[in-house]
């Protein structure tokens, strides 16, 4: 057995070794450490995207803080109580929650290479995501039509910034979803494509988490 082979055999057990130096063993060649202790690309990509999503959440928290500070500043205009329709919000919430579930199904389908689960899950995710977006745009257009646009008051500026920013994220997510469907269709379940599916799933689930905060802070607390 050459030193390289011995290293490959031991490499996996080197977890927790940090720098890859084993005290006590001593006979392992250096090459095994790079082999055995570097995380797989799936973990590196997923972790990096997770950090991006957390920074996105930090950005949203600034919009939430702005909204919370300004939510009472209606400048004599309509307040949340006058504008919000909780039935619509409940339907939007249901749409996004179900799409988060179907997105999970699609993720499982991609890893298991089950075409029906993947394409079916992605199609359902798109339908419910687009349904959410349709209701939200309808709500925005209605508000602007009755003179409650973003320029009406500080409250409405903060409202459209926060909820609109989430809506923009959903729109981009839908475009990304279509891209992932096309990429899997054209290139198959390659590891690099599966990494992108993983990131898309994380992105979509995170949008739902932000929506939980929005329907609580903006709509339920605002209408109550």
């Amino acid at each position, binding site marked *: 057995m050459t030193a390289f082979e011995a290293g490959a055999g031991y490499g*996996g*057990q080197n*977890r*927790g070794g940090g720098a890859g130096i084993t005290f006590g063993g001593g006979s392992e060649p250096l090459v095994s450490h790079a082999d*055995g*202790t*570097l*995380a*797989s690309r*799936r*973990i590196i*990509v*997923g*972790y990096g*995207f*997770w*950090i991006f999503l*957390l*920074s996105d*959440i*930090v950005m949203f*928290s*600034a919009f*939430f*803080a*702005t909204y*919370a*500070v300004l939510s009472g500043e209606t400048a004599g205009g309509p307040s949340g109580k006058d504008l919000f329709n*909780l039935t619509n919000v*409940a339907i939007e*919430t*249901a749409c996004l*929650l*179900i799409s*988060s*579930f179907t997105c*999970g*199904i699609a*993720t*499982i389908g991609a*890893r*298991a290479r*089950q075409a029906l*689960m993947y394409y079916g899950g992605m199609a359902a995710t798109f339908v419910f995501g687009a349904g959410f977006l349709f209701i939200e745009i309808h709500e925005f257009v209605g508000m602007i039509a009755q003179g409650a646009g973003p320029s009406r008051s500080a409250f409405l500026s903060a409202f459209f910034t926060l909820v609109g920013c989430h809506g923009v994220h959903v729109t981009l997510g839908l475009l990304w979803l279509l891209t992932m469907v096309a990429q899997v269709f054209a290139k198959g379940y390659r590891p690099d494509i599966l990494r992108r599916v*993983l990131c898309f*799933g*994380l992105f979509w*689930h*995170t949008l*739902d*988490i932000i929506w*939980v*905060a929005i*329907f*609580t*802070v903006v709509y*339920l*607390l605002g*209408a*109550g």
Partner: protein
Amino acid sequence: MSQTDQEAILDHGDAAPGDEPAGRHEVVEGVLGYLVGLFLAAFITAVAFFIAGTNLVWGPSIPLALVVLAIAQIGVHLVFFIHITTGPDNANNVLALAFGVLIVMLILVGSLWIMTTLSQNMAPMGM
């Protein structure tokens, strides 16, 4: 060393955020996990919408109840949809999340604290 341990070590003892823990790649098991998450999240959402419009509970307690329900639901999403766990393979993911939560809390609590104190110290605008 068991088969599951071997698989975990092939992944170098870490799991990507969003991935199921090592050794849990069964389709049925995965779908069941998402179903449990969907059920729990739908239940908490229904309770939140019910509480927001009810007269059954003491009024001033409603905002606090809604915030608690939202935090609970975010926890459900993190565990059942993003698969953040307390296991050693998730230590890095949890630490990143903890740092994000720290910054979010600083921004939210800090802004609200400063701005409410500021309003109290301002002269009335004479509306």
